[in-house]
């Protein structure tokens, strides 16, 4: 296991380095002038030229990249052109909000997905099964920005039960989390239903039923632990994706997470912040995937890594 983790970490470094090169090249391939972004649209060409020189943007790209990597290894990801704040400070100030939203969203996904997935599998072919899968189709098809605005309008404006956007108080998390959870949860239900159907048809489950064990116990203690692996994979992937920022949901609700920060960075051609948020997201995704894979081995003793 230790060898496996070490190998994955080494690969992770290569992946993050590759992402940094690709992002750097793409960011500078866009015909935007970072010095113009910094100086403002009304600045004269001479002012922009001065600022380009002061920011070191007139140096060859490979030298700028090496300088960037050198500073990044010392924890300095540069200053955001638009926010005039160190990039790392800007990202870390937003990370707790993305983390809370990610956890809340996944909680709602599991709250919706697991019961519905189990019921649909156990009551296969019934109206419950068909309704659940129909809802799953709707949930997966509904765009998040549409769902978010509908929820906000309904439960923040028409019936003002929850706050209208922003992160003001504990109830502010509910609508964004439900927006994420509704779409993801019904997807989890589909996956779990499929996995449960497969598990419920296994010999050991038939044996357990034949022994007279109650149906609830058969499902909960024999079937579910073996069927849950795909859901664990999805949770891991979702966690990795959400921690990097959920752009659409954060923008709709004004939730001050990394997604909103990244979106504004792209809108403003704020290259240091774009680099920072992309690198941060890639590190998170890589690390969470390693943790998820390691978790598999604990959940399922049959899985062994060399």
């Amino acid at each position, binding site marked *: 296991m230790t060898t496996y983790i070490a190998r994955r970490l080494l690969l992770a470094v290569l992946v993050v380095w590759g992402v940094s090169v690709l992002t750097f090249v793409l960011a500078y391939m866009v015909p935007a002038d970072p010095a113009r972004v910094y100086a403002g649209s*009304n600045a004269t060409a001479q002012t922009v030229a001065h600022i380009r020189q002061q920011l070191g943007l007139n140096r060859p790209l490979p030298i700028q990249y090496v300088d960037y990597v050198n500073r990044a290894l010392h924890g300095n990801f540069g200053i955001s052109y638009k926010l005039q704040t160190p990039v790392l400070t800007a990202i870390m100030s937003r990370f707790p909000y993305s983390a809370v939203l990610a956890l809340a969203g996944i909680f709602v996904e599991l709250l919706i997905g697991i019961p519905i997935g189990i019921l649909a599998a156990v009551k296969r072919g019934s109206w419950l099964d068909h309704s659940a899968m129909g809802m799953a189709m709707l949930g997966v098809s509904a765009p998040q920005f549409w769902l978010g605005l509908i929820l*906000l309008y309904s439960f923040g404006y028409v019936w003002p039960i929850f706050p209208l956007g922003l992160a003001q108080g504990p109830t502010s998390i509910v609508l964004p989390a439900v927006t994420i959870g509704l779409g993801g949860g019904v997807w989890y239900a589909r996956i779990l239903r499929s996995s449960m159907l497969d598990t419920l048809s296994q010999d050991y489950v038939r044996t357990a039923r034949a022994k007279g064990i109650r149906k609830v116990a058969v499902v909960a203690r024999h079937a579910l632990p073996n069927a849950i692996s795909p859901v664990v994979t999805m949770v891991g992937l979702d966690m990795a994706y959400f921690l990097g920022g959920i752009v659409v949901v954060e923008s709709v609700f004004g939730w001050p997470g990394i997604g909103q920060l990244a979106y504004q960075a792209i809108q403003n051609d704020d290259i240091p912040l774009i680099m920072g948020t992309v690198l941060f997201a890639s590190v998170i995704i890589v690390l969470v995937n390693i943790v998820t894979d390691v978790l598999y081995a604990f959940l399922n003793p049959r899985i062994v890594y060399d």
Partner: protein
Amino acid sequence: MRPRLMGRFVVALVVMLGLGLGGYHVASGSPAKASRLASQQPKYGGVLTQGFQNDLATLDPAIAYDWDNWPVVKMVFDGLLDYNSGTKIVPRIAARMPKVTDGGRVYTFSLRHNVHFTNGRLVTAADAAYTINRVLSPATKSPGASFYLDIKGAPQVVAGKAKTASGIKVLNKFTVQFTLIKPDVTFLNEMAMNFAYIVPKEVVQKEGANFGHKPVGTGPFIMKQWVPGQKIVFVRNPHYFIKGDPYLSGVTLEIGLNPSVALLRLQRGQLDMLGDPIPGPDFLSIKNNPKYKNMLVREVEPETSYIAMNTRMKPFNNVLVRRAINMAIDKRRIVQLLNGRGVVANQVLPPLMPGYNPHYKGYPYNPAAAKKLLAKAGYPHGFSTQLYTLNVDPQPRIAESFQADLQQIGVKASVVPLSQATIVQKAGTPGKVPMIWSGGLAWLQDFPDPSDFYGPILGCGSAVQGGWNWPFFCDRTIDAQANKLLGMNNRTKRLAGYRSMYNKVMQQAPWVPVDNDVKYVLHGPQVHGPYWAFVHNVHTFFYEHIWKS
């Protein structure tokens, strides 16, 4: 005096007092504006909440250079000069307007003796000198340095060869003098810009790059808290040197609000004022709803949206072609496409700019005459070209309207929608872009002087790579006239000179001026103030003149 006459007398007196107190300037009268001007006794107290989608960049006056930052910077800082309710420059930290000598080259400012920074220290002439030298210093990376290059010794500071400009002198504790290399009447406008807002040296040195997030100034408000991406909180400065200002006990800017959600919050009473424009889909319903009549403030913006034609690329190097294009565009349709958020433009300057010519007719909309002119230019069957535009709605739709207009006279223009960064980069590259619609990127004034609409966007010096002179227009005769007008002290003659100069520009027709955007600000019924406090020509929001009931 009879009661009826007494009543009328009182109303007239109150209106006159209201006008006198605020120095109100009714730029374009309307019943809504008159009702705002009529007496409402301001109340002290209350916190104004305003919603913005994007976080502010910085509150460092030397760095902030966009119209979201500027009104907020003004909450915390003051300069030697400021504007009244309109475009007239008035003293602020300066005790009076500066003494101008040596043919307009030397400006001597006397400061008030009672202005303090919010850390308690008295403001002196040394602070004013430090402020401008700081803007010039390359270490500051200020985008405003170019405005002060006419000060003697300033180029040496910008080049890093000197620490201070030789033309900035502290004569005594409360007197500072600026010597220019040549007369420039816009120097007063430049000293009223945010770049010249006075900053305390010891705080700047202590905070370094973080000064923009921990600003200390002399302004009517003090920044109390900045939670990045969430809110910025300001409280009233109890020791502000202008007695009676501000009315509000605080201002809270809520950041990260989608404009549609901000509107819902305002309608629910959870927000006092929108900082961003009313969302497009909701605009007409808000504008046409009588409920919002007294909550909607309207003003023409100090900007002009135009089609630029590259005077160095065929066939737009032919003035007859450019005039023909001017006559082919139906500008009224564009105002309709904007849902009335614009007025037709027929010249370079916007209506509120000093020097604007209300009698100038411009090129008439006449496709038949345009076609004849095109034939005279040697293009009887028209030609093919490209029209670049920003790819954000409604600009592509507007560009398609131009496309249809041009088709009528035989010009086949393919629309090329691009992102902001791309289009700015391409438009500033010689020989790249034949035609560009500036919608969404139009030139918004730096200060209310007609020179600001020439030098940066039509002058020979700006027809360079990376410049904003997208037609790459350069007429040496007009340039010489523009330079002469910069040093002219007689305002009446000067403005007449600009009217003549811009007439000549329009004869050369590097642009098709299409519209001047109209700004609408929506606030709640509990928010009050003169209309110019919401749509000020220079500051946009003049927070110290807003109050809540």
